[in-house]
């Protein structure tokens, strides 16, 4: 029986039969560890920012594995992991509650024309000053 010869010597060493019929492996549903959401804090005092998730059997292992997934490059001060099951979220069917938000310009600072009033005030101040000097 011929075995698989691979460019990767580790695969060759496994002596996998080349013409064995492909076995269909059926895994049970949810055959995975639970997930944890990872929050990365680049420096002390900064916000923890969500960067992704990891699979792990326990919170301790989630933190351990998150360190290498999300903090092996770049500056890191701390990490949080939170069980995905503990995240409360809106249902996607309720996204319509956000629909009119972009139209509410009056909630933006930029929507207020304060600049005109400030300029007018400054001008009035200057005029007064000139009057005193004369």
């Amino acid at each position, binding site marked *: 029986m011929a075995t698989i010869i691979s460019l990767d010597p580790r695969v060759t060493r496994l002596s996998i039969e080349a013409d064995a019929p492909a076995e269909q492996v059926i895994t049970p549903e949810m055959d995975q560890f639970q997930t944890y959401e990872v929050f990365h804090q680049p420096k002390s005092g900064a916000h923890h920012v969500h960067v992704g998730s990891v699979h*792990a059997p326990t919170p301790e*292992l989630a933190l351990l594995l998150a360190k290498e997934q999300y903090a092996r490059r770049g500056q890191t001060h701390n990490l949080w992991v939170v069980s995905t099951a503990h995240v409360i979220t809106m249902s996607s069917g309720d996204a319509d509650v956000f629909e009119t938000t972009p139209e509410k310009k009056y909630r933006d600072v930029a929507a207020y024309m304060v600049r005109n009033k400030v300029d007018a005030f400054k001008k009035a101040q200057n005029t007064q000053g000139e009057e005193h000097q004369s």
Partner: protein
Amino acid sequence: MSTATQRLILRMADDELILAHRHSEWTGMGPLLEEDIAFSSIAQDKLGHAQALYQILHDQFEAPVPDAQAFGRNEATFTCCQFVELPNGEYDFSLVRHFLFDTAEYLRYGMLGKSTVEPLAKLARKVHGELKYHLYHAQTWIIQLSSQGTEESKARMQTALNEAWPYALGMFDPKDDDAALSADGVFPGEQALEDAWRASVADICAKATLVVPTDTAAMLGGRKGFHTEYLQPMLDEMTEVYRIDPSAEW
């Protein structure tokens, strides 16, 4: 004629290089994606330690450049202990070896932080944090798969521990240089390290509800160039590209 200090640095470097390569054989084949990445990263760190140690030998003791020391030597001139050469086997053995080796490594570098050999002390202090993570990684898995695991996972950890034990004791060979190293303030010695290692391993085994194996004869010889049948094939594979053109730049 090499000094006790040179022999110490070389055996540390060779242990790191060979175990780094063994660990890296898991890359792409790890038991889960996240662990595959973490273990590969640990392997890369170990390679970095080896490189730094070969660099000290090059800078201070006129040894060849690190690449030549790592890839250009015969099996008989390697002074790694036999423990690090053993094939990975299954993940249980790799994890147990990682735990036993890294406990010793963490304690060793802790002792070397006060060494009178300044470049060695500097390196030891620099890598302290990453060694702490390696040890935390090893201990967490050992406890998870033993006291928190299934009957099968616990039995596998105990079997792997029993198999690894006599080879692990070979990490603390030789002790002939202990007096000289300790007198010069270079390193407190392999015996002092072994004592500290036994205490730390026993502590984690208690937490993991694993039985510390009874001592049998330590597997020695690696430090003198006598290796298991597994080292030469590994060196052949590891040095394959280097041997095609030793002067190639990457």
